[in-house]
């Protein structure tokens, strides 16, 4: 049965990828990207990687197509037909690269093999001792936020850097910060009344769900990354329906920019705090006498830092993109 589900999902993935190549028009491509993300998420669920599936559903199927849609809205949905000579170099290079990649996979161990390097190095230790050392049911969170916390700090820094880069590129010269809305949407001509009312009912629950995902990450799928994306998506939903000026009054761009750095700092200071007490960087055992309690506190603080950074960076990127669109329209 699982084999059948896998075959169907993979066929749909290949069909979506093919359609993405063939289809002309940026709006259709964006929607197909979202479908692709959702299919990937379903595929990850069948592989029992629920945390990854959760992230893929939130980012791959949700927020990144949304940012692409904002871009399409700013630049127009037409995709010009390619002109000029055949790109011979590309036609030669792409099959060669594909062939090399396929040859590379031949050396990889078969799927699920117990001899795979990923399953013989540190993974058995994490799986066996996580219950004793960290004491939380979700091993993914204990690996992400405790055993490999330094790697996660790197990931959070990458996200923060992405936010800074977007601000550097998209912020208009002479203005400070990500969003200075000048364009006010004409609500008399086209009021989104039904959408506004339904979103007004749903947004509190979306925010509540984000908090649940944030603080329940030790016990179930979820954590700072997923919670941050869900939190930001509620803000984006509000912005899409009520206009950029309104959402900027509720969630100030300057505050969000500031918070995106605060999240990284919370993560980093947690590590430095351990160093000040003479322990290795990001060693949580300084937080409490009981090592398991100390791990709990450390993981909660670190995940909070991740959540704050992810939520505010995505909001910052949304503000920067939406500001471009509204400037282009007015």
């Amino acid at each position, binding site marked *: 049965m699982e084999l059948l589900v896998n075959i169907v999902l993979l066929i749909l993935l290949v069909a979506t990828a093919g359609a993405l190549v063939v289809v002309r028009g940026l709006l259709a491509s964006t929607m197909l990207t979202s479908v692709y993300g959702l299919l990937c998420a379903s595929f990850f669920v069948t592989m029992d990687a629920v945390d990854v599936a959760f992230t893929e559903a939130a980012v791959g199927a949700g927020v990144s197509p949304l940012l692409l849609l904002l871009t399409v809205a700013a630049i127009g949905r037409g995709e010009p037909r390619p002109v000029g000579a055949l790109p011979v170099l590309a036609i030669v290079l792409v099959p060669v690269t594909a062939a090399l990649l396929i040859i590379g996979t031949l050396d990889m161990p078969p799927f699920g093999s117990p001899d795979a390097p990923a399953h013989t190095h540190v993974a058995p230790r994490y799986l066996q001792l996580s219950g004793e050392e960290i004491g939380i049911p979700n091993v993914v969170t204990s690996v992400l936020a405790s055993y490999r916390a330094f790697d996660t700090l790197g990931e959070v820094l990458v996200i923060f850097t992405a936010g800074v880069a977007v601000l550097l590129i998209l912020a208009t010269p002479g203005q400070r910060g990500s969003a200075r809305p000048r364009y006010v949407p004409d609500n008399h001509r*086209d009021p989104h009344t*039904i*959408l506004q009312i*339904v979103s007004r*009912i*749903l947004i509190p*629950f979306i925010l509540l769900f984000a908090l649940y995902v944030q603080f329940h990450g030790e016990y179930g799928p979820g954590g700072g990354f997923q919670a941050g994306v869900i939190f930001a998506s509620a803000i984006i939903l509000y912005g899409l329906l009520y206009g950029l000026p309104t959402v900027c009054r509720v969630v100030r761009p300057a505050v969000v920019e500031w918070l995106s750095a605060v999240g990284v700092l919370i993560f980093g200071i947690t590590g430095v705090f351990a160093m000040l007490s003479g322990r290795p960087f990001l060693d949580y055992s300084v937080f409490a006498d009981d090592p398991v309690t100390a791990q709990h506190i450390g993981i909660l603080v670190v995940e909070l830092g991740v959540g704050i950074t992810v939520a505010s960076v995505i909001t910052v990127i949304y503000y920067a993109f939406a500001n471009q669109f509204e400037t282009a329209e007015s």
Partner: protein
Amino acid sequence: MSAILEPLSSVCLLLGSFLLLTGALGFLRFADFYARLHACGVTETLATALIILGLMLQATDSALPQFKLLLILLFVLFSSPTASHALAKAAWNAGVRPRDRRGRRDIALPPGDR
């Protein structure tokens, strides 16, 4: 207890799947955008509700999965019709008008709309 619940759950799941199938068929066969949207928008809401109800009737040790499924059901009941509405409205604003099978306009349009 489970002798009643199990068949009831199966009936709900099968009915939901059947409705999804009819929606997909309508989406492929109907004439214009609005008829297609009607086919999948209406069936999808009811089908999802039936499938979630079928899953809720599956026996479990605790009531937590049932509660979570109930929340998902409420969310779908809110979001699915709203999504259909948003699609229809966006299409209307973009200038898509109802047409019949031969590509002619099917309904009288409100005054001022061409």
